[in-house]
């Protein structure tokens, strides 16, 4: 099966970049070994992103940078961050396009199960004043605090840019996945209705933010 995958790079892109924090730009990962030329071309583009990141790092740490103002230095970092985000968005779009191919009927039946599930979050899922999620009761427990913080940090980026870059999307996905794991581990200790409310909230939150589906 021809599939173009996309994964985030080795390290997270940081929202406020300093020279030592430079994230590795996203790398397109090609699972289709039968199309080595496509994989090789994707890798060449990925190398350009690394060269760009290294160049910005060098510029910020060069001798000339000694006379740079904090604002100028931050501008270089910000440009690099948005450049990374732009290429991540383009890779995600390419991955989405590559998935558009006819599926066998039996796979379409599985997709049918997904398509019948609610995708968006219902009204009242976010606080109108703060824009933060109105977490279901179970997800308000301290066990979920760390992941809640990640989600609440990334949601404004999605809101501003229209979508998350691949690295942010991966971080968001991992946070929501971890919440689902914690939830599942406590499944026998909580009322089933509350479990399903919390799980469905996570499912819809992940889909509406990253178009990624939990089962």
């Amino acid at each position, binding site marked *: *099966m021809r599939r173009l*995958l996309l*994964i985030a*790079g*080795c390290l997270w892109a940081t929202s406020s970049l300093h020279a030592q924090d*430079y*994230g*590795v*730009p996203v*790398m397109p*990962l*090609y*699972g*289709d*070994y039968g199309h*080595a030329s496509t*994989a*090789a071309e*994707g*890798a*060449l583009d990925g*190398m*350009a992103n*690394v*060269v*760009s*990141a*290294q*160049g910005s*790092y*060098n510029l910020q740490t*060069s001798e000339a940078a000694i006379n740079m103002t904090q604002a100028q230095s931050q501008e*270089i970092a*910000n440009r690099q961050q*948005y*450049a990374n*985000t*732009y290429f991540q*968005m*383009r890779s995600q779009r390419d991955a989405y396009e590559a998935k558009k191919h006819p599926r066998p*009927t*039996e*796979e*379409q*039946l*599985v*997709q*049918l*199960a997904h398509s*019948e*599930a609610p995708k968006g979050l219902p009204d009242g899922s976010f606080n109108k004043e703060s824009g933060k999620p109105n977490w279901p009761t179970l997800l308000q427990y301290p066990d979920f605090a760390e992941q809640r913080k990640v989600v609440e940090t990334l949601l404004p980026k999605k809101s*501003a*840019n*229209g979508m998350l870059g691949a690295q942010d999307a991966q971080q968001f996905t*991992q946070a929501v996945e971890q919440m689902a*794991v914690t939830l599942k*581990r406590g499944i026998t200790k909580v009322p089933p209705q509350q479990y399903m409310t919390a*799980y469905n909230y996570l499912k819809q939150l992940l889909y509406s933010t990253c178009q990624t589906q*939990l*089962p």
Partner: protein
Amino acid sequence: MIRPATLFTLAVLASLTWHAVATAEDAAKPSVEALVEATASDDATVRREAIAKIVELKPGPDVTIPLFTKLLEDADPAVRLRVMNAIADAGPAAVPGLIEALKNEKSAYWACLVLRELGPEAADAAPALTALVEHGQGEIRREALLSLAAMPKAAEKQMPVVIKCLADPQLEIAAIYTLGRIGTVPAEAAERLRAHARGEGLSSLLSVWALARSNPSDKELNQAAIKRLATGLNSKYPLVRAMASQGLVSLKAPPQLLKEALKSDLSMADEPVVRNALNVLASMGPEGIEFLTESLQHPNVQHDAILIIGDLGPKGAPATEALAKLVEADNLRVANQAIVTLGKIGPAAKSAVPQLTKSLKEGQGSIVHNSALALGRIGKDAQTATPELSQVMKSTNDPSLEILCAWALVHIAGDSATTKSDVLPVVTAAAKSDNPVIQKAANELLTKLKSSDQ
């Protein structure tokens, strides 16, 4: 918090767009004009929304390209990102506008990124990019050079400028990369690259790579480059690891050579190393299965590794045991993907039937659907799962799961009279479904059942 004035403007934009869509084509023009006007709003939220609506309306390149290239100057990053995406989607039609944008200090950097994305399609921009490499400021010069590299044939014509950049500390790495991307290293540059290659760090790694790319028939040089790049995968520097990983894929390194170079046990390696190795493994095909199986030990890369194994189809069989364990993982997305991949492996994944049967009975959401699908794809060797499939088929209220179980039963034991009598009423009813997918699946099954009768 959103200001009331912003909310009002957004509401007006929404109604304008609705009006444009709901009325005749001629009536859409004033709406586009209003949206264009809104792109000059003082409020970034309004500008973002206006751009999104213009993209949605597709008024044509005559309207969008001049507008969007001007908007590349916008200080709001979200506005810029939307504009850049829209320009890149326009393809070669956007190139003249982007050449204009290269002349403006505020938009040049962003125009370079879009031109890099367009690659050879944007070759007309090569002279303007070269001028920027020579006379631009700061990192704009580097981005212009990288954009030039993305159009290798056009870049080759600018070789003297590229070689000159090798002597500039801020452009040297980008110049080495450009030479490698072009695939030609002139004699006057080759000596410099060979000297770099003897050193360490990113410029050394890139020089090795560029020399190999420019001498594809020199097997010894290419093998040495692959070994060197593979060593880079274990570097403590993330950028070196990333470069090594991409460099290996770009050189289309033969699997055997990669296996020798990647001899470390990935289950023992650090996660960032495994992430970069996965990129290489994805290009190796079945030869990489041993390493892919090892990488399943790392929770944060499991999902990606499973997807790559899934692409191998039946050749992913050696990973069956490891995948079967993941069917019971607490991470439901990982468990679900493991099930899907076992189905792609097919009959060779027969040892996973007990785990798949359990997930069919106890799974959550689409895990149940995918378990039925995987069991059906394993086929005759999933015989022990037929009672559970039959039970789920009869008890579920979900029509897609019902027909999936029927599909699985037919593929496991379609010749059996018991299966036929179980399945036939379900399939016959599904053939009358209003849902086209269910109806299609039912008709395909009826055809299969009839052919097995003959």
